[in-house]
């Protein structure tokens, strides 16, 4: 006699077996990969987003269009999608493993501050001569240089600014006319910035401004705050990115950090505010990057019903002529791999950054294009996007290029974290600079 228990057991085992067997076709098809495709020259590209995301779909469209256009020339592009993660370690691990197996894709995408790191370690190929004819079509600040040569072309641009809550500004008695002056060609000054904060302070429940001082220790805080150091006349590193002593601990750089400290000591901001405080109307201004535009428009936050009631202001500047704003997103680069003939890769690279592709990507992501011609006339006058791309064209300045950028990023975070805790910033910064210098020397 067969018991019920036994029947269940048999069904369970059968289900497991069926599940495993159903996977076999997929596993066997693994071995058929990487074959030459009908006499075509195959050129491969790896993207840092998943194919289901909006950005991934845009890339898919561009690659499909390329294959359509180059059918006759017998070039075929294949795309793979390895999404970067929080620490971008999966993407990097994938790169390392592919390099070990000598099967790097012909084109990869990379975060622009990492350019030197990849170039110095032999991942990226020098494309200086290859793109000499098209490099003027991009904003100068967004091209990726290493040792004076171009190693990467930007996919899109990003910039940041101060989002503000119109109701709170009105309550603080800041007129539209005053606001419009801050947004024009001459950037507003630190003094004006502080004065706005002073008036906002009394009407905001939590703080006048969210400067991301208490942010998680990732790239966000350095990305949003580094332009202030340039705007104070400071520097991070020498031209070649090999020396930080004498730059990061210089008087001007330290003065920028003291400006941050003054915002804290005057009670304009704290290291305890987060994004939700702005979304809920408890903070008047919020320093954030371009993709907050889409969030504010679409997500119907309580302080911004139906996506309105907010505006965007540029970065302030202290030393005239030193105005700076955040730039730099992901870039395309050609790799040093087993293909010594880079002509097919060049065709694909040029295709991916041409105006049509750039427009497609911008339409999908809502970010600003890296091409001047695509942006022109695209945005309404007075729209936040228009402000961002004008700022980008006028004051955009890239993050420092250095091989040890991750070390720099951690150091920057450590300094910002220390702001409310120490009175002797010079000492702390010079200590950290010495350690940073020592670590950089190892690359």
């Amino acid at each position, binding site marked *: 006699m067969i018991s019920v228990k036994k029947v269940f057991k048999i069904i369970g085992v059968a289900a*497991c077996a069926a*599940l*495993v067997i*159903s*996977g076999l076709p*997929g*596993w*066997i098809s*693994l*071995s*058929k*990969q*990487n074959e030459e495709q009908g006499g075509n020259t195959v050129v491969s590209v790896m993207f840092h*987003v*998943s*194919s*289901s*995301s*909006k*950005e991934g779909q845009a890339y898919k469209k561009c690659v499909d269009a390329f294959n359509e256009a180059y059918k006759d020339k017998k070039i075929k592009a294949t795309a*793979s*999608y*390895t*999404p*970067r*993660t*929080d620490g971008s*370690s*999966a993407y990097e*691990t*994938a790169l*390392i*493993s*592919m390099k*070990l*197996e000598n099967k790097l894709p012909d084109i990869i995408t990379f975060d622009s501050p990492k350019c030197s790191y990849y170039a110095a370690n032999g991942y990226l190929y020098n494309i200086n001569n290859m793109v000499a004819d098209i490099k003027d079509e991009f904003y100068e600040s967004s091209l990726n240089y290493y040792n004076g040569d171009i190693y990467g072309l930007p996919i899109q641009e990003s910039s940041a600014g101060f989002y503000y809550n119109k109701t709170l500004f009105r309550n603080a008695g800041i007129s539209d006319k005053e606001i419009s002056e801050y947004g024009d060609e001459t950037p507003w000054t630190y003094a004006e910035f502080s004065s706005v904060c002073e008036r906002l302070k009394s009407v905001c429940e939590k703080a006048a401004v969210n400067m991301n001082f208490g942010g998680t220790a990732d790239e966000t805080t350095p990305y949003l705050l580094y332009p202030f150091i340039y705007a104070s006349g400071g520097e991070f590193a020498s031209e070649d990115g090999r020396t930080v002593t004498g730059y990061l601990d210089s008087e001007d750089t330290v003065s920028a950090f003291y400006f941050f400290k003054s915002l804290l000591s005057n009670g304009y901001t704290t290291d305890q505010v987060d*994004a*939700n405080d702005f*979304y*809920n109307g408890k903070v008047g201004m919020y320093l954030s990057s371009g*993709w907050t535009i*889409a*969030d504010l428009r679409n*997500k*119907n*936050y*309580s302080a911004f019903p139906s996506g309105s009631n907010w505006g965007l202001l540029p970065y302030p500047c202290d030393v005239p002529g030193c105005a700076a704003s955040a730039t730099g997103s992901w870039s395309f680069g050609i790799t040093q791999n087993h293909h010594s003939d880079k002509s097919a890769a060049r065709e694909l690279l040029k295709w991916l950054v041409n105006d049509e592709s750039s427009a497609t990507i911008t339409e999908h*992501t809502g970010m600003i294009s890296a091409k001047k011609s695509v942006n022109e006339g695209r945005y309404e006058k007075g729209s936040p996007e228009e402000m961002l791309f004008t700022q980008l064209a006028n004051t955009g300045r890239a993050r420092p290029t250095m091989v040890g950028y991750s070390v720099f990023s951690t150091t920057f975070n450590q300094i910002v974290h220390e702001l409310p805790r120490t009175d002797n910033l010079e000492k702390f910064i010079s200590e950290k600079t010495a350690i940073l210098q020592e670590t950089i020397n190892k690359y």
Partner: protein
Amino acid sequence: MKKSVKKIIPMQNGGQTEVEVVKGSSGKVALNVVYYVCGAVLSLFFLFPLLYMLAYSTKSDSAIAASAGTFAMFLPDFKNLGAAFNNYKTVFIDYKIGEYALNSLRYAIISIVLNVIINGLAGYVLAKFRIPGSKFFTFIILFLIVVPVETSIIPLFMVVKRMLGFKGVANILGIILPATISVFNVFLFMQFFQSIPKDYLEAARMDGASNLKIFFKIILPLSKPIVATVSVFCFIGVWNDYLWPTMLLVDNKDLLPIQAALTTIRGEKDLSEGAKMASLVITSIPIFIVYIAAQKYIVKGFGTAGLKV
């Protein structure tokens, strides 16, 4: 024949809960009430992250922002159930998390079967066989258990790719094989098998049973708790593994396990927080179920293994 075995082996004594009949003195009733109230409060203290995950997975982004930092963050948004549906729909339809879950399940099933056989055989030999050099293996096992080494994943990759050179379909082997060996499991098996009386095995051997037959027909059926424990550990290991399969399957995204899908979803900046939380709920649930189903066995498995480190 089987029944007599159970009598010999004193292992299934724990576990069964004798339910005390709540009758009699009112003091005892009061004590029980206090017990249940304390238990409920404590449970809430340990369950609230689960409530938070479930609640967030049902909300739209604006609802999440509005409820952050208040007690409302532990309650689902009943007014807007469409948001919950959307979140789960995105994860299942757009990001195909179900397919990745099936991949993970496949790897887990194969790994568990191999894990039990390979480590079980090793434990059997170390527990019941007298072979020259067995001390050497026992020492290495104890060493590897006691001294944890922060291993980099890159050397493992170099071993698999450069020396073994897995290509194509063999990549699947590369994913499964490292998950099939675990010195801790060998150790658990060894400890458990030592409690099985030797004369019983000798009797089977007298009947002409081969070593493998003894292992599969006698040892394993007697060792359900430890097999369950090892299977659970193996399942969780495979289910949570992420970086290693990603390295091996760089250009075969369809075969990646569920954690890869989870990381993709978490890194997506145009995806709502609710959908991200929904994906976390989906990946946590199987582990939770497996633990609940197997916890009785795990308790027994640990109990009888004796844990003589």
